[in-house]
């Protein structure tokens, strides 16, 4: 019976997020049961690699409160957020296969607005390490964005103003933060004056990208590091916005699919969502590629630039498989988040 249950759990595994180790040789992936699995990317990419390298080298129970929605990695720490508190582990401990919790930041429960029984979840964590700061930005279920100092564990700033929970965050130049929310808006914040949002974008009101039948929620946001471009999507189509003029310039059409993750890569935009494809776009809206992947709903995309030998694109979603793309055009292989 237990084996049967393990098979069922594996069938219903969703990997919400994954991230690379600072050395770029390992991938950590977190699932809906609160487990984190570590895979060895360098072993799987080795020329003599066999299918056994697709299995996790280490699995540990990271959360007693259920799903982990987001992972982030610093030079030394792996940080997770989801149901329950933010937790951090040392990469060194994880790679020596020890589950030793280094830090834990509990959410203040009295801030909850979502309801008496619903703990505010953390939907996204972004690290801000510019200007010698080490801050953790967390997009939470109580409609707020919290900023913690990673060293001291002190909560520094609260950005509040959304009417529904916050899905996704993007941080740029140390001070600018963009947040995409279930309420259909992207708000641009300046952390130096946190009391109010600087701008607010409402794609569901924009003719170019609004799609009423999918609702107004926004699941993903990303900002270009050099120019003033922002891309966001969700119920409304994925769209590119010019930050200074706050106008939508391009719409990336994905009929029937809501985009749930997006990233800038070189001169292109990569996005994925509620269909089992990874879309590669050029900035002018032209679709360059549509690459099939294992999950039918993708929650996380990531590009590994830390290790020269392991430059790969990876995607996870509602499947126990973590897809690896060595070449952007097709899936090379999948790591498998096994249930024991």
């Amino acid at each position, binding site marked *: 019976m237990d084996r*049967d249950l393990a098979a069922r759990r594996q069938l*219903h595994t969703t990997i919400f997020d994954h991230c690379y180790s600072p050395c770029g040789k390992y991938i950590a992936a977190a699932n809906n049961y609160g487990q984190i699995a570590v895979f060895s990317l360098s072993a799987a990419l080795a020329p003599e690699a066999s299918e056994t390298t697709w299995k996790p080298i280490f699995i540990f129970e990271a959360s007693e409160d259920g799903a982990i929605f987001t992972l982030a990695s610093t030079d030394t720490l792996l940080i997770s957020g989801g149901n329950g508190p933010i937790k951090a582990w040392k990469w060194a401990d994880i790679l020596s296969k020890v589950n030793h919790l280094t830090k834990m930041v509990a959410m203040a429960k009295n801030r909850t607005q979502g*309801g008496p029984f619903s703990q505010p979840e953390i939907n996204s964590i972004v690290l801000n390490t510019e200007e010698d700061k080490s801050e953790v930005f967390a997009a939470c279920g109580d409609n707020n964005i919290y900023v913690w100092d990673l060293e001291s564990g002190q909560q520094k700033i609260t950005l509040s103003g959304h009417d529904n929970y916050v899905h996704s965050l993007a941080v740029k130049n140390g001070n600018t933060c963009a947040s995409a929310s279930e309420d259909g808006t992207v708000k641009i914040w300046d952390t130096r004056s946190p009391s109010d949002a600087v701008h607010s974008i409402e794609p569901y009101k924009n003719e170019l990208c609004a799609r009423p039948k999918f609702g107004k929620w926004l699941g993903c946001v990303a900002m270009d590091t050099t120019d003033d471009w922002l891309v966001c999507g969700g119920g409304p189509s994925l769209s590119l916005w010019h930050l200074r003029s706050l106008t939508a310039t391009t719409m990336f059409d994905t009929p029937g699919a809501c985009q749930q993750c997006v990233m800038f890569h070189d001169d292109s935009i990569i996005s994925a969502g509620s269909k089992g494809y990874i879309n590669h776009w050029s900035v002018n809206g032209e679709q360059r590629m549509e690459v099939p992947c294992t999950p039918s709903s993708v929650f996380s995309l990531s590009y590994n630039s830390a290790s020269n030998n392991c430059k790969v694109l990876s995607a996870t979603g*509602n499947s126990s498989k973590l897809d690896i793309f060595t070449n952007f055009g097709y899936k090379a292989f999948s790591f498998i988040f096994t249930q024991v």
Partner: protein
Amino acid sequence: MSSKDHHEVEVKRKRSLKKESSPTRGAGDVKRSKSSTNDVKLFYAEEEEVEHRDPKKDLSLFKSTTDDVRKCFKDIRDSKDKPDKSTNDHIETKKRETALHFVLLKKLNRLSHIRCKKSRDATNEAKQRIDQYHLQLQNLLYETMHLEKEITKCLEFNMLSYDEWSKDEEIELVSVEEFYEEAPSDISKPETTKEDQHQLRLARLDWELEQRKMLAQKLKESETSKDQLDKEIKTQQEYLENLQPKLTSILQSTKPVQEYLGMPFDQIREQHQIAGHLPHPLYVLYMQTDAYRQACDKKLEVKIEGDIEAAKSMKSTPELFADKRRRKTIDSGKVERKKKVLKKHPLSVVLKIKTKDGTCLQLNFYYLVTLEIVTVVMQLKSGSESPSSCISWGDLLSPDLLLNEIYPGDNGNSSPNAANQYELRRLGLGEFNQYIKETGKPYLWAQWLSGLQFLNNNKSSKVADSSVSSENMQQTIKRLRRRIKSRLSLLKQLASLERGIIPLAPEAMSLFPTKIVAKLASWKRSTYEDFCVLPYTEELISNGLAKESDIFFTATMDRGSAKMTAQIVMTPDYPAVAPLFLVSLQWQTERSALNDINIQEMEEEVNVHYKEMIIHKSHDQILANQLQRLLMCFDVYLETETQNAEEGPKEISKEKVYARFARGPNRTKPYKFCAEVGIFSHR
């Protein structure tokens, strides 16, 4: 010698002859006549002379002489070529010189001839001597060979003669010391035998004979006493046999008393007597179940049925029977062959398992004589409380499904004895599962209960081992009971489901809200083939979570225009393993786990988190609870999905209290019901 030299020599001779012939003839004649008397003497003198002379010196002398001769000739010629006054004298002197030389040469010649002869004689003499020695050697060799032959002949004779002539040596005699100790002195006669080996032997043989005679007499005596004892035993046996009918008549007379007192000793004895005719595996089965019945489970009933006479005759001539069968299989037809191979033992063990509500599971265990396996035929007699007829009734209680996978993977379709496969193939009968209808099913647990253990790697112990049986007895009976109980409770649930009512137990009510708008519209049996056709089942089948041996159902639920179809996979082991649900939803569009993650989460609610729905550790209600949960989730899905859409008239009204509509990156729906406060929240 070259031809020129030869020529010269010839010339010399002619000249010397000429020279001799004219002036010296007279002198020579005189000399010859003078010396004719002394010839012989001289001859021998020369011979003697040879002895004293050195041949080498003679050779050099000969050479110098010939040189001198040559010189003389040369001088003569020279002087002839240049004649002067003194020439003639000179020639004359030279001639004389030469003649003298010739004499010397002649002498030397003779000597050499004598020498030659002498050495030849010496050689001959030596050769003769050698020949003589050789002959002598040959004679000696022949003599040794002859002697050797004689020796071997003698030896062979010795060996041959031993067998033929020394028979007495084979007789084992007592040792000499023993002989002197035991034998009386008139036989041993120590005074003569001590010295004479032959006499000793004769005496010992005499003693042996004497002893043997004595032993023979003893044997005769013993035999007579034995005959006497035999006679005695016979008379006593006759007496005992006469006793038997008396005893049986006494027993017969006690029967009414037994019946009156309710003590079925006789019946048991009869059964035990029949049990003696059971084949060994069935005997083990009978013995162990009977023991288990007496010790642990009074509601079991074990009986032996069948033709005792046939069993008796079979037991008495098992060899003959086997022989006949083998011979016939070669020439008889396929039907007859099949009959022989699948032959059951005439006796069978009947095991009845009764439950509290009066349902009775009757298992007939048969033993296939040739294939050496035990098969089971099942009958179910429903009790008073059994549910009224429904479509799934007979099917689910048929032997196929009821006894399927009592132990995991044990479906009773193939023979556990791997040797059977070869036997059947050899006889051209194909696979065993074709004959299951005739023989019954050879479940593994039936073999275990009969003490037969066939291992996967064909290491089988065909000798029934009762320890195997006792080890598995309790668990198997328990599993059988649990299976009947759970199957009956399942049937009740199914009967209710077919009427569109989800049979919730009262204690399970608290798990669900009081008002659920969605309704169960239909409940049907489905098949594996229908299940496989559906597009969203592929992953389940490839993961081994849905197998052909499972039981499949299709349920439809609806609310307004929305219709949900659930495919249910139930293992034969239900409710130990919770049923698995696959959902597809028709509402505006066709939705399933493939294209809507919220549907996938709905499946997760019932498939993974089913443990929340087990109340008081009772698995029996799990199907109903899962269905109710699914209905509830269906409501939640529709109500929250409506909130998503912006405008327009809402078909589905919000009936429930939700903490939040969506949560997390996957915008999951509040499927979890908090019973204490009656609101829906997220997991």
